[in-house]
């Protein structure tokens, strides 16, 4: 493994958490990374922005111009549009995130696209109050700093600097704790976790049986452990010819065989099935072999 891979693996291991279900089963959960959460927020803001653009264009198409605010409020139709616009701004600021996070997926469209959802810390049930609390805090964390920046609020000398420090506390909050909690998560008792979906892949050990061609003995199967089995499974699923050839050669060197070439897939599949049977029978007696060194 290269240094980069090692770094990624350790960083991922730090984000692993466990959830104990009421059945007493430990489910692995992975905290969503800070980067993907920031990206999800940007995506959501982008969706809101596009939504507004479409809304204003539609109003323009039916002949209403928002530029002439004075016109609004004179006529009943203009008055209605005025109310709708103000309410739309209000609900996109406070309601969008609330509505989507209360849904069955527990995620806004941005979070969903990046494979994340909101969950209650410590395996509790996610309640409506939690989602409300975490989204009310969003106001000071996202919208007020944004308006401040757009309004050049930081130019105002000492007050501007104080406001900057104050808002930076909120923006930098997720970097100061292990669970990447933002202030809203802390207050609501929630965190954001990854939701990986997995498809059920076929079992490799069900491939046509060649155990008559290749027979492996106890000594030959004892050299490898579970880690090597999983690496082998990965190689077989990828199906790269060159990699299979390399792996087959490595195994043959180790167990002192010579299989020639052209038949690597059958050899590896059979070896995989035999090794799995061997390791699983050990498991049934409580003996687990983690890797070739143990």
């Amino acid at each position, binding site marked *: 493994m290269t240094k980069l891979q090692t770094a990624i693996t350790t960083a991922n291991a730090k984000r692993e958490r466990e959830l104990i279900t009421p059945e007493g089963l430990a489910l692995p959960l992975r905290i969503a990374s800070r980067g993907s959460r920031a990206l999800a927020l940007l995506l959501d803001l982008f969706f809101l922005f596009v939504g507004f653009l479409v809304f204003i264009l539609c109003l323009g198409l039916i002949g209403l111009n928002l530029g002439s605010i004075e016109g609004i409020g004179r006529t009943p139709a203009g008055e209605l549009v005025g109310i709708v616009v103000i309410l739309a701004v209000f609900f996109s600021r406070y309601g969008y995130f609330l509505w989507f996070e209360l849904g069955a997926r527990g995620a806004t469209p941005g979070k969903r696209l990046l494979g994340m959802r909101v969950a209650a810390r410590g395996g509790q049930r996610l309640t409506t109050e939690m989602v409300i609390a975490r989204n009310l805090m969003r106001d000071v964390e996202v919208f007020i700093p944004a308006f401040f920046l757009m309004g050049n609020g930081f130019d105002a000398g000492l007050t501007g600097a104080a406001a900057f420090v104050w808002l930076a506390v909120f923006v930098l909050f997720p970097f100061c704790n292990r669970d990447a909690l933002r202030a809203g998560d802390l207050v609501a008792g929630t965190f954001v976790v990854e939701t990986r979906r997995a498809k059920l892949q076929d079992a490799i050990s069900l491939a046509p049986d060649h155990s008559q061609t290749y027979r492996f003995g106890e000594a030959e199967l004892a050299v490898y452990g579970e880690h090597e089995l999983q690496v082998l499974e990965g190689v077989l699923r990828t199906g790269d010819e060159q990699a299979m050839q390399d792996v087959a050669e490595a195994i043959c060197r180790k167990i002192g065989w010579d299989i020639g070439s052209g038949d690597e897939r059958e050899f590896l599949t059979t070896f995989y*099935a035999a090794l799995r049977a061997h390791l699983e029978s050990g498991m049934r007696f409580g003996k687990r072999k983690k890797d070739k060194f143990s």
Partner: protein
Amino acid sequence: MALDYLRKIPWFRQAEIAPSAEIEAASLRSDRFRLEREVDWQRLERIVTALEKGRPKRITDDDLLDLPVLYRKAASSLAVARETSLDAAAIAYLDALVRRAWFQIYGPRETLTGWLRGFLGGGWSRAVRTIWLDICIALFFMVAGTAVGWLLVSREPDWFYALVPGAMSDGREPGADPEVLRQSLEPTANADGLSVFATYLFSNNTGVAILAFALGFAFGIPTLLLLISNMALLGAMLFVFAEAGLGYEFVAWLSVHGTTELGAILLAGAAGIHVGRSMAFPGQRSVLAAAQNAGVRAAQVMAGATIMLVVAGLLEGFVRQLVGEPSARLAIGGAMLAFWCLYFAGMRRRQDRAA
């Protein structure tokens, strides 16, 4: 058969598929284990996907009845597979499946309307009663802020310009002509354009209330500052009108929506203080647990404060501009105040009464 009825109970229902030739042929025990159960796993996955998409109507009655059993079966399969199988693909699949199913089965049980019913029917008032101490603190600082505003302007009128932003005073300043001040309290002739104004006020005031809550995160101090500064503005205004001999009219004018709006700001500030206070003094609990406990309770109070601000916006935009008589205004304001006090004190859930 005497035991036939057992088959109707999902727990005892047999697997629908007979062991196929494929299962018989599988050489590994773990593969047989998997092949026997994967039909159930995939059935659970279909149900969970429908739930996630928000289309529970697509699930048949049979599927829905079997859902808890399918979930427990998948969870138990996962536990067994972890100890007996080295089929990484199947374990990864089960991990993801059980997690998704867990989120659906142990997820939020209420709909938004159901939550709202419970909320208005007792949840809100109970949360408000629970934070009574914080309400007292917030009320104290609001009264103190008003007094400070009044005293500052009465000693040195220049303070008025520091406290009240120029755009807001609109000619209402110390030493102004009483006639101008009286004009600003008059109702407008008709209601045109008032609904836009009311909506704007609501959106604006809710922003302030949410800010008051969210700032409570920093141990409540910014919330107190926000309350004092807003109320000092009110105190300054009050002095200006009282000086011109219009104190009674001003209070009446303010009370129409003010009792509701100031009540909402009081609740929002108290919610912020509640969070801040729990984080500063968590007691026996960890800071995280204390903040969460307080945050969830404060969120209920805040959701209610938003409703109060809708009412306040309507009162301010319509009623205040249409009703001109000070005594009538005062009566409306007083009635609203009495209504809120009675609601918070008296609205209890049935189980609360029983307990």
